[in-house]
């Protein structure tokens, strides 16, 4: 009664399944074969595969999908740092060999590639991640395999994993100072507008607590789904609420739609102050400077930041990736992360993760954004806060900065009004 060819199907399954396994099995053999010491097939210890002349380093960013918009440029700046270091003799006499992986804007893929970089490629460290979700996906993998991750993007804080170094700003180095700045400018009524994901919701929670403590007022709190493109109703709500400032944590494409439609509705920067934390030089290029002129942003670095290191950084970046390319905060943070790792390795004298972590505390480095220091206690870095205004030529002019680098405080312990926010793990 069986249909024809069934026994072939059974055999077909057995053959194809075993082929797939053998395929990936052998794939695994030739991997370890390419990396040197036979010890590498030992259980995934963190001993770096420092083979003769090169040390492997992972670069894990989204090269496809919705997040490729922001992450491709950060990958480029990290690669530039590696090329510069290799040209100058590498680290501990070894050339850095970058292994590039695509996170594909898909969080389990970030976890899968992180596991591959650590246990298969034996990468000494990994530079990568962008969205909080991708970092949260990689975190358990790095802690399980005792790997080392450098996360180059500003984020919502309230985290400090022993296996991650955060070279982007935490909330008290971007959100909190920017709100203080606005309050000093006499902006009392805040309209909180953000894309519907973790960073805006957490940032707004902090802002509401800060405003309540400092006499500000939260007029409204609005969220739009990622990829939302129609802001006419939101703009109508803004007109009705008549806030002093719109604190904007929208992300990616939504910013394009919001500012274009804001200008359509006859609202210019002079009529309504907005401060954004997800718009850098790269995004300004995508939106068009004529829609953004006069609006404020809060970062720790701008292409116009006048430090000698920044001049060379911008020049070499334009030389490498084209004259019309721009440099933004996350790109600079990624670039700085590579140098900080190099400094920590040289101080520790070895690529071993625990040694590098122990040696990292207190390391200083003259980054394009100015002097930065690694805070050994929470593995973030001291950063100078800068409020900028977008110019009609697409550059961002610095209006105010915090003077000296601000100590990172991911759990906002140093702020009394943030007491109930988090007990800290």
């Amino acid at each position, binding site marked *: 009664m069986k249909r024809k060819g069934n026994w072939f199907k059974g055999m077909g399954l057995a053959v194809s399944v075993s082929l797939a396994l053998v395929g990936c099995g052998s794939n695994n053999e030739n991997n370890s074969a390419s990396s040197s010491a036979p010890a590498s097939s030992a259980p995934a210890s963190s001993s770096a595969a420092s083979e003769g002349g090169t040390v492997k380093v992972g670069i894990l960013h989204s*090269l*496809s*999908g*919705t997040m*490729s*918009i*922001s992450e*491709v*440029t950060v990958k480029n700046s990290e690669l530039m740092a590696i090329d510069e270091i290799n040209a100058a003799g590498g680290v501990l006499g070894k050339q850095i060999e970058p292994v590039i992986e695509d996170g594909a804007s898909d969080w389990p893929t970030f976890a899968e590639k992180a596991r591959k970089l650590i246990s298969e490629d034996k990468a000494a460290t990994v530079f990568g991640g962008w969205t909080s979700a991708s970092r949260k996906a990689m975190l358990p993998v790095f802690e399980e395999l005792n790997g080392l991750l450098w996360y180059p993007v500003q984020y919502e804080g309230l985290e400090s994993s022993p296996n991650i170094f955060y070279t982007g700003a935490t909330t008290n180095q971007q959100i909190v100072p920017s709100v203080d700045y606005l309050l000093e400018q006499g902006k009392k009524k805040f309209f909180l507008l953000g894309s*519907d994901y973790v960073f805006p919701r957490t940032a707004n929670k902090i802002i509401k607590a800060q405003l309540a403590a400092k006499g500000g007022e939260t007029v409204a709190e*609005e*969220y*739009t*789904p990622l*990829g*939302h*493109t*129609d802001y*006419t*109703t*939101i703009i*109508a*709500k803004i*007109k*009705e609420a008549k806030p002093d400032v719109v604190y904007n944590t929208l992300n990616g*494409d939504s910013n*394009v*739609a919001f500012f*274009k*439609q804001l*200008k*359509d*509705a*006859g609202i210019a920067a002079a009529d309504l102050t907005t401060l954004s934390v997800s718009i850098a030089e*790269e*995004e300004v*290029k*995508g*939106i*068009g400077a*004529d829609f953004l002129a006069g609006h404020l942003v809060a970062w720790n670095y701008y292409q116009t930041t006048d430090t000698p290191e920044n001049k060379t950084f911008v020049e070499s970046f334009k030389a490498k990736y084209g004259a019309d390319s721009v440099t933004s905060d996350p790109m600079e943070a990624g670039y700085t992360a590579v140098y900080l790792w190099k400094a920590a390795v040289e101080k520790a004298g070895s690529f071993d993760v625990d040694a590098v972590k122990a040696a990292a505390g207190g390391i200083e480095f003259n980054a394009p954004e100015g002097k930065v220091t690694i805070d050994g206690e929470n593995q973030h870095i001291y950063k100078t806060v800068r409020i900028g205004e977008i110019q009609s030529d697409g550059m961002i002019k610095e209006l105010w900065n915090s003077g000296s680098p601000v100590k990172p405080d991911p759990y906002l312990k140093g702020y009394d009004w943030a007491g109930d926010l988090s007990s800290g793990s």
Partner: protein
Amino acid sequence: MEMWISQLFNGLSVSSILLLIALGLAITFGLMGVINMAHGEFIMIGSYTAYLTQNLFKDLLPKGAFDSYFIAAIIASFLVAFVIGYVLEVILIRHLYGRPLDSLLATWGVGLVLQQIARSIFGAPNVAVSSPSWLNGGLELIDGVVFPYKRLFILALVAICLVAMYMYIYRSASGRRMRAVMQNREMAACLGISTRRVDGMTFAIGSGIAGIAGCALTLIGPIGPNIGTYYIVDAFMVVVLGGVGKLVGTVVGALGIGFFNTMFEWWSNASLGKVFVFILIVAFLQWKPKGLFAVRTRQLD
């Protein structure tokens, strides 16, 4: 009081954008029964064509002529999307008539390919298109209520496309041939209509209109490889809700979704607004499974 007027206008403008996006689909899906999941990518093609036209005008022509680039862009985006649509129909869609579910999966693949090609040509980050100066600003009838020229332009563009499509489908000879082929392919072939050419033309027109939508959307939205994914599900919802095969269905579907979306968003927030609209659509289809203006057929299946 002005809030109500501006909200009504917002509802109308959202509906007009939904209609512009779904109009092409009303042909490819409504009339031809082809599920084209790459419809969003044709919108993207339209946007990128507008970007290229803008650069062309900026570099080659004198400054004064820049403002008229947008009209050229609309025509160019229709033609480019039309040609790519025709080529896609000849290569792929031809094999998929009568297999709706397969055409859904195959065109999803096409969408992936088009997105990646756009990403490698134009780069992952968004590109900027500055709107022509005669479209900036807005009409201020009552104080405090501004009707942006861009939205009015899109409303006008949609109206023109609608009338043009109506005249083509219901009042022109080739439109009649198209409907004949769609309703009974074998009979039309017997009557000497080259169904191959009509299929190609019909699909290409549907894609061309998606190109126009893409060009118009550069006024108010982002231009990047992924914008297609934002619109595709909404476009299908409009056509399914409105009822397949009837132009008036698509119009009413777009108006319905547009106004409800704006109203819900006003009362709650944008995320919940979108959720309520979709729940409404699912509930509505219980009552009328074939959409508002269903075409009744008597065959068994």
